[in-house]
Each structure stands twice: as C-alpha cells, then as structure tokens.
C-alpha cells in the first residue's frame, strides 16, 4: 500500500528482495517486480559492478528473503547507486524472526542493514514502529486512538508503535520481550526509550478471557 499510495508506483517496477508472497502482494496492487528467488552473478568483480540493471526499476524494496545472498545485496546496491532517483523501502527492522522452541533466524532488519550500510543510505521502513500501518488501519476503519489498545510481545516494535500513535499499550510475556526489558527502558531516563515502556502487561493474551466472558 505504501508503495502504491505514497510512492505512486502502481504500474511501475521494483527490484524486490523478498518472498513470493511479497511478490503476490505487490502484483495485487499493480506493481511489477524483478529479483524474487535465487540470484547468481558470475564473472569477475567488475562484472558484478556492471551487472545488468532493468531501467524500469523505480525502487529497491527489501523484505524477508531466505534467498538473500551477496549477489542480491550487490544488485540492490547497484540499483541504488546507478539508477537515478531510485527509492529505497524496507518492510520492517525486526532483528530476528522467532521460531518454535526458542529458536530464531535473522530478521528483515539484518538484510536491510546490509543494504543500507553498502549504499550508505537509510531506507524508509513501513512496518512497526513506523506509524504508517496504524494510519492504514485508521483510514479503513473509523478509529479513535483514545479508545485503542495495542497488544504485542516486542517493546521496540509493537509497544513503540502504540506509543507513536497515542494508543494504550499492553505487553504479553509469551514472546520476545520481558518485564525486565521494559523496566530497563523505564529506568534509563532516556526520553526516546520511554516509548518502549508498556502501560500494562499480562502473562498471556489468555489473561484477557475473564474480562471478555464476564
């Protein structure tokens, strides 16, 4: 939606580091992409720097991509430095993607940081804690921030989003962040970190059941 409505890329093309699911979402709003899947560049270093670029590409978009590789990092860099006016958008900055059993894999934030560092340029990110997603929700439903509750497990994305949008925030302890993390932000005395302090916390979302059943 951001790419269609804010960047006006409907009918245009982007270089996508992301999944086939992302490709489908883009296609649904009329945005074409190149780049999904594996990427192998051959030859010497100079060939890599002179890799073929599609002149129709108007933006580099970075999301979660298990096919991420140096080749893709290189291609994204070449679009950003060689294609004039190329936009740079990331879906989110999550550092890890939590899995079952306490495992985790590197998150989109890692891939984005790689491209940002190489290009020495910051991407515009759309995901939490950026308020864009809330604005999307608010524009589709009649929403009064004063009567909203943001429920999440990550202080730096979910709770931060809630704070950025003036919502009440509730941390559940079934995920990434702990009460100790929240208290550390609160005690830090740093104004920026106060946005990561939830108003409330519960052990689990199931704790809401009695209130809803009553």
């Amino acid at each position, binding site marked *: 939606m951001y790419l269609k409505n804010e960047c006006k890329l409907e009918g245009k093309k982007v270089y996508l580091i992301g999944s086939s699911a992302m490709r489908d979402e883009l296609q649904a709003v009329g945005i074409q992409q190149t780049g999904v899947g594996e990427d192998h560049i051959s030859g010497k270093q100079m060939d890599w720097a002179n890799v073929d670029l599609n002149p129709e590409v108007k933006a580099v978009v970075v999301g979660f991509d298990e096919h991420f590789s140096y080749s893709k990092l290189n291609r994204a860099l070449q679009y950003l430095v060689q294609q004039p006016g190329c936009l740079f958008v990331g879906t989110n900055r999550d550092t890890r993607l939590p899995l079952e059993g306490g495992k985790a894999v590197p998150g989109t934030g890692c891939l984005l940081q790689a491209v940002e*560092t190489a290009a020495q340029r910051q991407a515009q990110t759309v995901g939490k804690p950026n308020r864009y997603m809330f604005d999307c929700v608010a524009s589709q439903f009649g929403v009064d921030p004063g009567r909203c509750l943001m429920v999440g497990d990550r202080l730096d994305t979910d709770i931060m989003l809630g704070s950025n949008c003036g919502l009440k925030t509730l941390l559940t302890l079934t995920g990434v962040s702990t009460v100790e993390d929240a208290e550390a932000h609160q005690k830090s005395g740093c104004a920026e970190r106060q946005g990561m302090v939830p108003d409330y916390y519960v052990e689990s979302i199931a704790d809401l059941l009695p209130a809803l059943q009553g």
Partner: protein
Amino acid sequence: MAGAFKGCQKIRGPQLRNLLEAKDFILLDCDGVLWHGEKAVTGAATVVNSMIRNGKNVVFVTNNCTRPREKYVHKFSRLGFTDVMLEQIFSSSYCSALYLRDVVKITGQVFVMGCEALRSELQEAGVPCVEDAEDPDATIYNCPLAPDVKAVLVGHDDKMTFLKLAKASCYLKDPDCLFLATDIDPWHPLSGGRILPGSGSLTAALEVSSGRKATVIGKPSRFMFECISSQFEGVDPAKCLMIGDRLETDMLFGANCRLDTMLTLTGVSQTKDAEEYRDSELTTNHSFVPDYIVDSIADFLPAFEEQDKRSN
C-alpha cells in the same frame, strides 16, 4: 580564527622532502594509492622503489582480504614494485590469523564468513576453520552446527547466503564465542567509480541479528599497527607516516596509532571531504582529518630526483 583545528596541509617539493627525511617507517595503503585494480598509479612504483632504496622501512597496510600475501607479492612484482617482500605486507586477513593464533590463542574452530583467501591465511597460521561443506538438506530453520566453534570471523564474502548468516547468528548466541571482522569498510571501490558491497555491510547484518558488536581487526582499529610493531624493531609512532586514500579508514587508523597522516587524492576521499571534517564542530571528526594532502604518491618523485642529483 584562533584555536581553529588545522590539518589538510597541501605539501610538495622541499617540504615533502623534509617530511620524508624525518620519517623512518612509511605505511602505505594499496588500493587507490598505489594502484587501481591492475593498473599502477603513474610514478607509484618508482616512488616506492626509491623509498626502499633510500633506506626507509616501507610496509603495506591493506583492508583488502581477498588475496593471500603470496599473491600480493606477485601483484607488486607484476606492477613494477620490485623487491617487495612477504614480510612487508600486512593485510586484514593475515592480521586476523595472527589475532586468532597469538592474541586469542584460540583452541576451537573458527566459523568463517569470508573468501577463500581469508580461510587460507588462517590455515597457513594453523588456525582451524569450519569446513565450507555443501549441505543440501540444511535449511535456515534447521541447520547443523559444527562443534567447538570459538569464533566467528566476517570478511568479504561474495558467496554469502542467508544460511551462512543464520549459522553465524547461532554460533554468536554463545557469549564465549568471539565475534571478529576483518574490516568495516561499507563498500569497496573498483575503477571507473564503481563499487561493490564491502565486509562492513555483512558485519552490520550480523551485528543486527546477534545484538553484538564485532571486534575489528583492520583499519581503523590499532591492531594492524601492533602487528607491525611486533614484527619490526624500533617502530616509533613519531617517526611513522601513514599514507592512504580513505579518511574513515586510513586517516582514522593513523590518528588512533598517533601517526602523522597523509591523504592522496587518487582514491576514495577528496579534499572537500577532509575540509568538511576539519570544519566540523564535533571534535571527534577531527580524527578523520589528514595532516598532509598530496595529489598523488607521485608527488614524492621530485624528492628522490633531487637526492639522485645530489649524490651524482
């Protein structure tokens, strides 16, 4: 303006000759100073050969970890730099091997996210690396990990994959597993203004996923200077001159090691970049400012021609 920070002194001719006479050790960056790719900077070979012939200790300090030192010796020879010995070459891959062997005295294995040259320098130093084996059944969600990995080393890796990032992140969950980077250069320059993603971009990705900061071996960290000091007698920072082309790497390295610094304009950074740092209100930016600036290393040529005339 009284008290203004100086630096950026354009230097040539007799002043340059005097500076050279006051220095015993010349530390030279390679890419952008001595050569661009396979093309030597005009006059660079003559200058370096003359420095060595005139009794200066010349060492080469490069963050480029993509070539083992033996190949650097061949490159120097190919491009006309005669008499450059292995012992004069300090690359970030060689120094990473020294760090692991001599400083850390590593007992387990090292997981290397880097090029073949990096692995071969480690192997040459007797530091065991995890085998770079193909594992078709491995997925990012379930990848087999090697036992006894005591360090993760990140360098330039044009075969980097998500799987490698995932494995490295797993190893780094153990706080006793070291996190090292050959260098943090965000991009490497090629000729014609082209660039490629650098080790810094891969290190940044891993820092985000692990929540840890890497220990940097290469410039601007001091370690490569410590390697030089331990391998040569009588290295006095006051009698050293660091010559490079990248402010954030070479000049900062020089400042960190208390060396005089010289920027050549044949590479990455330009005079206006140096002046911006000089005029900055942030005093930390002053560490990026070179003491001296020359257009090219070839500006040293008259100093030797003068010397040759006098001795004839």
